[in-house]
């Protein structure tokens, strides 16, 4: 404990540390260049899509915003995104209504309810849901889910048909509807919502929870008073990230939905379409002009997802600063 022989002499300060080697400059250039390249790619996506889209929209003989049908390959071309925008938003909203409460519930289950030793295998199970490719969800949705949801559809039609929303015009038609698509999308975005929410729940200060417990709160009251208020903005941004995924999902929707240029409030009718589904379905036999028209609809989808994701990220970023100041 007494005098150890460690040499405590301070190394002589080197004043010439500022000398940058050529290696340093090259490496900095390369890494900064890659960062800039990413920005360039994002800009290029916007620019190239816009160029083709403007070409297509200027030759559209319908109204791009309000026309129902998508006949870009005929002459004169008539196409519009009304049905697609409606279908995209409605199916995503259905997905959100189902997935947000369940996703938050699962996150709570893993972070607060599950036995400690089970928590990480359960989290892995949720990751498995995320790892399944969307085409497999589509295949399962079309061959397994659609026939199995028929019963639920008829039941909804019988008892809730008076609302209009759950009215099924032709009860014998298949369940390839926006409603089914919404359910499938809900399953697909669950892991995103769960994982982000779980991350936020983990950041809740232990002291808050313990304070609530000390006041005699039950576990649910702890969650309502300490966990959820702290995590609210995190849950919002988790939902928006999920929404971004649901809006852009292509193959599962393309396989499951029986598309038609109809804008209907009856969610159980096999009708409607989404941006991504329409692109996948029409691309095969599209002419050169038809492709440009599809690119135009892709641009709209790009802008929507950009706004949703950007907003989600801004909320998360603001949160980070907030919790950092609190820590």
């Amino acid at each position, binding site marked *: 404990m007494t005098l150890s022989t460690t040499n405590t002499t301070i190394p002589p300060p080197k004043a010439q540390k500022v000398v940058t080697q050529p290696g340093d400059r090259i490496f900095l250039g390369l890494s900064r260049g890659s960062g800039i390249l990413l920005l360039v790619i994002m800009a290029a996506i916007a620019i190239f899509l816009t160029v083709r889209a403007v070409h297509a929209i200027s030759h559209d003989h319908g109204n791009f915003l309000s026309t129902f049908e998508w006949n870009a390959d005929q002459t004169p071309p008539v196409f519009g995104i009304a049905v697609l925008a409606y279908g995209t938003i409605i199916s995503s909203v259905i997905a959100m209504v189902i997935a947000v409460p369940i996703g938050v519930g699962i996150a709570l289950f893993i972070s607060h309810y599950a036995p400690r030793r089970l928590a990480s295998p359960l989290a892995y199970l949720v990751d498995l849901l995320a790892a399944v490719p969307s085409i497999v969800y589509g295949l399962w949705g079309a061959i397994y889910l659609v026939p199995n949801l028929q019963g639920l559809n008829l039941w909804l039609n019988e008892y809730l048909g008076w609302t209009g929303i759950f009215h099924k015009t032709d009860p014998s038609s298949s369940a390839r509807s926006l409603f089914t698509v919404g359910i499938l999308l809900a399953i697909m975005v669950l892991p995103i919502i769960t994982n982000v929410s779980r991350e936020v729940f983990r950041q809740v200060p232990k002291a808050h929870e313990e304070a609530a417990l000390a006041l005699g709160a039950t576990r*649910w009251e702890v969650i309502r008073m300490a966990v959820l208020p702290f995590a609210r903005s995190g849950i919002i941004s988790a939902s928006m990230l999920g929404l971004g995924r649901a809006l852009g999902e292509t193959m599962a929707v393309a396989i499951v939905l029986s598309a038609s240029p109809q804008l209907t409030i009856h969610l159980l009718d096999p009708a409607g379409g989404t941006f991504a589904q329409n692109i996948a379905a029409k691309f095969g036999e599209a002419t050169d002009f038809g492709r440009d028209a599809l690119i135009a609809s892709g641009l709209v989808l790009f802008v929507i997802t950009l706004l949703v994701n950007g907003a989600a990220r801004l909320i998360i970023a603001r949160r980070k600063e907030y919790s950092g100041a609190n820590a």
Partner: protein
Amino acid sequence: MSDATTESASTTAPEPSLLTRRRLPRWAPAGIGVASVALGVGIGVATGLSSRLQWGLIALLLFIGLTYVITARVEGRHQAKDRVATSLVWACFMVAVVPLYSLLQTTIAKGIKVLDGNFLTHSMGGVITMMPGGGVYHAIIGTLEQVGLASLIAVPIGLLTAVYLVEYGRGKLAKVVTFFVDVMTGVPSIVAGLFILSFWIIILGFGFSGFAGSLALAILMMPVVVRSTEEMLKLVPNELREASLALGVPKWRTILKVVLPTSIGGIMTGIMLAVARIAGETAPVLLLVFGNQLINNNPFSGAQSSLPYYVFEQYSNGNDASYNRAWAAALVLIGFVMILNLVARAIARWKAPRTGR
């Protein structure tokens, strides 16, 4: 104290002690569960509901209702709400497990029928779609080549960007890049496909090829690699960097020889997960690679197939033999993705960063 215990439980006593309050036995939730499942099935059979999903829903509602009523009578309203919340949270988890189980079970049960050595080593050349036979060899080749090329493009760019953000990035540029990397994570795969379509195929005039597909996949992969690498680099303790710099090692060599090797396990994990993600993408392949029944080993010219595209194509044929092939290919694809995931986890555990604490 004694007053509280003598009070009847149905009136909500103001402050009964936790220890003396009446409590339900430990087996109560299980008992209520069994009872409500039995009732649910009973009601389902009695009213002639066909779907087992509805039986389950009825049982679930019964369970929650019964739990609330019984707990409220015995333990009080606070506890009742708590128990209802607990059962709801458990129900959420069950609800998530049901589709996962059903999906895996269906895929395995249906896929295993056709999946054999012949299926893995043959293409669809000369196979009539209505007839059984044929395989996924050409699709596996396509997937491996497209994903490999995409990784070759995306991994170096992603790594360097992450290095920039963690090791160099201070100013405005770094903030902008971070934000757009996050936003880029959310770009739908079909939009990435359309971008390459307009840029590479329509404007530059190249034809459909596996490489065009890889370009789109690389766009989807880059932000994932950046994010995971960034997280890993941040875990490297600053002492290591300082020690190296103090020895007079230039910064770039410090990064290459100290920072990256320390975090290589986590970086590899992130890359594997990114590969697993793009291996399942169909939309860009649909737009850019166009699909092929035959084996095309050259990703730079001519149409190719890929596993997810093959699933889509066989499903679109719409007959039983094709459905069977679609399920088998889906099983191969899930197997491929799962193996990548497991390997990623194994690497993460094996090479966990030693933080020196």
